[in-house]
């Protein structure tokens, strides 16, 4: 636990794999920059690994004022104990006021361990972060410039804003894909602060015997247009229409959890609370009723076309174009219209 420290920096855990920065810390940079500017403090990235110094430059381009660099052969592969030990040491040394992590499998493994050691607060899976004040109603005591940690809870049925005003640092993991990628500025350089690392084999509680990473078959987050199908598509055969429309729009095919569970399409295509979060320019939702868990992953889309034969389907409440009709007829009409460039 560290004391409340209004001069403390804003930190981002710069998750890397095999010496290359992951996407999520880069996504966090623009939000981190905004928070640091509001608080008038530096934005720093915390980079751990073995021979990863070449990534500092990119962190500068994306907005970091500083990079705390901790290199050691034993930090080559992420594991909870060694990484948590280094990060806790840095937090005690520099007393940042905010520490953000991507809500990736790695970030969700690491951040709670750090929070428990530091006896600090941690909010999981935030979809937005802001700076604001909080008043304790009973005493009238007001805390300014706190990190407002905003996240869906209760299966997406409520939005909770969480704060921690007395035990710092304020920490949060942030959902992948919800923050826009910043544009790099190649003239911006970060100050690199090299840290001395003391680690021994005793700090490694885990031995990694084997690992396999597969490329996702589809990159939903990078797609400008997504055509998604739900259980209402009816069958794997019918789902071919979703692929056809996606193909003719240069779009990525997506799906609801229900459609994935029914075997219409591979899990890599799942969008929603338990899948990928997307914010494309256009989202076509066909045969999707619009359960709140699905909406959580796509409601930020700039334009939504909903096609459903049930006029009461909740998806229509967030759609910009409502097509009440049979998708088996409507989709071929769309394909025809697009091909003819009406």
């Amino acid at each position, binding site marked *: 636990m560290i004391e409340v420290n209004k001069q403390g920096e804003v930190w981002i855990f710069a998750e890397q794999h095999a010496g290359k920065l992951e996407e999520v810390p880069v996504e966090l940079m623009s939000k981190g920059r905004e928070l640091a500017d509001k608080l008038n403090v530096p934005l720093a990235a915390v980079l751990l690994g073995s021979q990863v110094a070449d990534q500092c430059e990119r962190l500068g381009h994306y907005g970091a004022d500083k990079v705390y660099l901790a290199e050691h052969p034993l930090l080559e592969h992420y594991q909870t*104990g060694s990484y*948590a030990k280094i990060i806790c040491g840095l937090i005690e040394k520099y007393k940042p006021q905010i520490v953000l992590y991507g809500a990736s*499998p790695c970030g*969700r*493994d690491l*951040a*709670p361990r750090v*929070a*428990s*050691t530091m*006896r*600090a*607060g*941690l*909010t*999981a899976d935030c979809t937005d972060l802001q700076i*604001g004040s*909080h008043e304790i109603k009973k005493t009238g005591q007001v805390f300014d410039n706190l990190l407002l940690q905003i996240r*869906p809870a*209760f*299966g997406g*049925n*409520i*939005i*909770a*804003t*969480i*704060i*921690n*005003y007395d035990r710092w640092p304020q920490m949060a993991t942030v959902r992948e894909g919800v923050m826009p990628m910043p544009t790099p500025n190649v003239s911006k350089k970060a100050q690199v602060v090299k840290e001395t690392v003391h680690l021994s084999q005793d700090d490694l*509680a*885990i*031995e*990694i*015997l*084997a*690992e*396999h990473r*597969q490329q*996702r078959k589809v990159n939903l987050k990078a797609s400008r247009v997504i055509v998604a199908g739900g259980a209402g598509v009816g069958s794997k055969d019918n789902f071919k229409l979703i692929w056809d429309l996606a193909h003719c729009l240069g779009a990525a095919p997506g799906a609801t959890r229900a459609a994935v569970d029914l075997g219409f399409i591979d899990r890599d295509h799942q969008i929603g609370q338990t899948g990928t979060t997307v914010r494309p320019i*256009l989202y076509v939702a066909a045969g999707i009723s619009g359960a*709140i868990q699905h909406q959580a992953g796509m409601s930020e889309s700039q*334009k939504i*076309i909903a096609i459903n034969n049930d006029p009461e389907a*909740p998806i229509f*409440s967030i*759609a*910009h*174009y*409502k*097509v*009440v009709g049979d998708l088996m*007829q*409507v989709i071929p*009409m769309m394909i*025809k*219209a*697009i091909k003819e*460039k*009406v």
Partner: protein
Amino acid sequence: MGYHCVVLVKQVPDTKRITGQAMNEDGTVNRAALPAIFNPEDLNALEMALEIKDNHGGSVTVITMGLPTAADMLREALYRGADRAVLITDRRCAASDTLATSYILSCGVRKLNPDIVLCGRQAIDGDTAQVGPQTAEKLGLPQVTYVEHILKLDGTTLVARRNLGNGWQEVKTALPALLTVVDSANEPRAPRALRLMKYKAAQCRIEIEAMAKDDPSVDVEAMCKMLDDKGLLIHQWDLDYLGADLQWCGRDGSPTKVHRIQSVVLTAKEAKDIEPTQSGIDAMVHELIVDHTIG
């Protein structure tokens, strides 16, 4: 030899199946109207513990922190195969965030002296996935998150396969250790009829006390002893029994506070109704091409 597995479980409102009855008229969810269920991934953790017992011997204890009504979930765990159930219930646990919850759970787990601690990756009411790692830290145990399979157990070490979403990892660690289990790990076994017949009589002290209120002939102490002798007592622990430091429990022990709660209201946006005809669709596609959304 066998292993003593302790499974951390939680009773949660069923947030995944929200029916019309649980909806308020303004489009928000009435949380109190949701049925209470066994957190789904905790069932996967329980199943993994029961498989360890089936294959290697030992015993399985389930432990929860919750309201007295969580005894229903503990009975369900007994029906499915757990040997022993512990309910940590105390008003001073109220308003605990994940940090305070893990502290309290760690005090309980310490009393049970397990070889392996298991829990679901996350609970469906908060989806934080924090209590597992935080409990491991409080206990000073290595954590292995997102476990799908236990590949090897040799008395002193464990090899497990983790599902990382975009791949997998096989890791080895010394025991004792804490594992968080994902839903793709297994198919939880159903309650067994014979066990149901036996364990439906299982009760915790607070339930027996409630009975005694209605029926003065019930002797609470005698009944607790009788149930305990038969292996039917759901052990009920409070913070005093745990020797917990109160400054780390409940509201005081929770660094995170709620600033605001907003219900998600499904509201209508500016929307255009499109006729499901070729001319209707043509007009829509034309508009999207003109404003450079597509094409």
